[in-house]
């Protein structure tokens, strides 16, 4: 029997997807503002963060309202509670994109230190992880969710690589320190984006299987 409640859950899902889409775009454009040295783009992305914050508040209120009014159980209860956690991760990802933009504006004022290779790769990986984890949420696809988790290791490895490389730059020439440290920070922000995507994927596993796989040490 299709319930009135199912319509409301559907609308909520759409809102979460909309929020995820906005965040994905912000991450993509944040890295573009760095790679293309486009500070105006960076400012636009920073301004768009407000929309994400508003959505988080709206969706959170709606989840609480639905919990109060429908007393959901089982998968419906897990859906609402995971939605509440997922939007927190999404909002933090948007904040990380803003951080990238702020560093981009600073970096764009100096000559480019070196070709940006690893950072765009990190961004692409993180964006794919976000897309897949949201697709998994919507499609209740456990396998897709589980596949996101090991991808985090690749992003971590790239973060370490960026750090080692830039450390070498700084040791050879102290004048590179302002730019190198900012690039290290950017790589950290992107690594955090990937972590948040992993959190979302873990929540999807909880949604579908009722099993909480967070905080289990990975090899």
């Amino acid at each position, binding site marked *: *029997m299709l*319930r*009135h*409640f199912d319509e409301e859950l559907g609308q909520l899902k759409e809102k979460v997807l909309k929020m995820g889409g906005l965040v994905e775009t912000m991450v993509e454009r944040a890295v573009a503002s760095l790679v293309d040295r486009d500070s105006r783009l960076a400012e636009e992305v920073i301004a768009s963060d407000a929309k994400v914050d508003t959505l988080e508040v709206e969706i959170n209120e709606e989840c*609480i*309202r639905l919990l*109060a*009014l*429908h*007393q959901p159980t089982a998968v419906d209860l897990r859906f609402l509670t995971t939605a509440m956690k997922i939007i927190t991760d999404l909002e933090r990802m948007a904040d990380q994109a803003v951080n990238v933009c702020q560093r981009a504006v600073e970096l764009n004022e100096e000559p480019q230190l070196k070709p940006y290779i690893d950072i765009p790769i990190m961004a692409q990986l993180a964006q794919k992880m976000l897309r897949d984890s949201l697709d998994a949420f919507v499609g209740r696809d456990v396998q897709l969710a589980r596949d996101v988790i090991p991808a985090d290791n690749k992003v971590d490895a790239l973060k370490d690589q960026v750090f080692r490389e830039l450390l070498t730059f700084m040791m050879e020439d102290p004048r590179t320190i302002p730019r190198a440290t900012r690039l290290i920070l950017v790589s950290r922000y992107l690594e955090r984006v990937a972590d948040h995507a992993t959190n979302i994927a873990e929540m999807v596993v909880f949604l579908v299987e009722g099993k909480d796989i967070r905080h289990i040490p990975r090899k």
Partner: protein
Amino acid sequence: MADGIRVEGLQAWFGPVHVLKGIDLHIVPGAVTAIIGPSGCGKSTFVRCLNRMHEVVPGARVEGHVYLGDEDLYGPAGDPVAIRRRIGMVFQKPNPFPTMSVFDNVAAGLRLNGFRRADLREAVEAALERAALWDEVKDQLEKSGASLSGGQQQRLCIARALAVEPEVLLMDEPCSALDPMATAKIEELIQELKKRLTVVIVTHNMQQAARVSDQTGFFLLGELIEFDETGRIFTNPRDRRTEDYITGRFG
């Protein structure tokens, strides 16, 4: 679209007992209003005042005004029989007329109101459709109303009430005697009904009020303590007494 109901200064007595102590509220048309509160708070009495059933009890008395649209139901021109056609009612225990068939149960109100035989069939089918019962009884219209299951009997009573095309449907604990599946069916039906009617439902089941209604009124000892959007009442009520009742901290 149906009219709303405006209640002003409504008071009611059973003999010397003052059961409603001045109720003011506005029931929004095309929506579901739930009336909740502990036993004895006056919620059933309140609803029976809306269609002038309270006064039928010997020794019962009403003061105040109930406006359906522009008409004051307790005004000098108020005709209780006409009012009960505009405002239908369904009760806790399903009460189909036991000696009549399914068809005749639904047609009863229509016949009393002078419906022509030719139009009866169509009207009965429409009412049974709107009560989400047609598919289950269309091949058994001549069967006794009492032969249906509890949930079906209740939907039959709803069809009977809907047949005379009321503007408002009052429901006094309509699911109390039904199992969860039958209850769920009726709750879904209520979501459909509100598209063409105004619904007022009395329920002692708070979760049902939360699921089903757009507005909720909380009664206590004959007074209306709080009346607001259901979402607001169940997430952040203004009155401490409302919150105590809803969270089960009462008594």
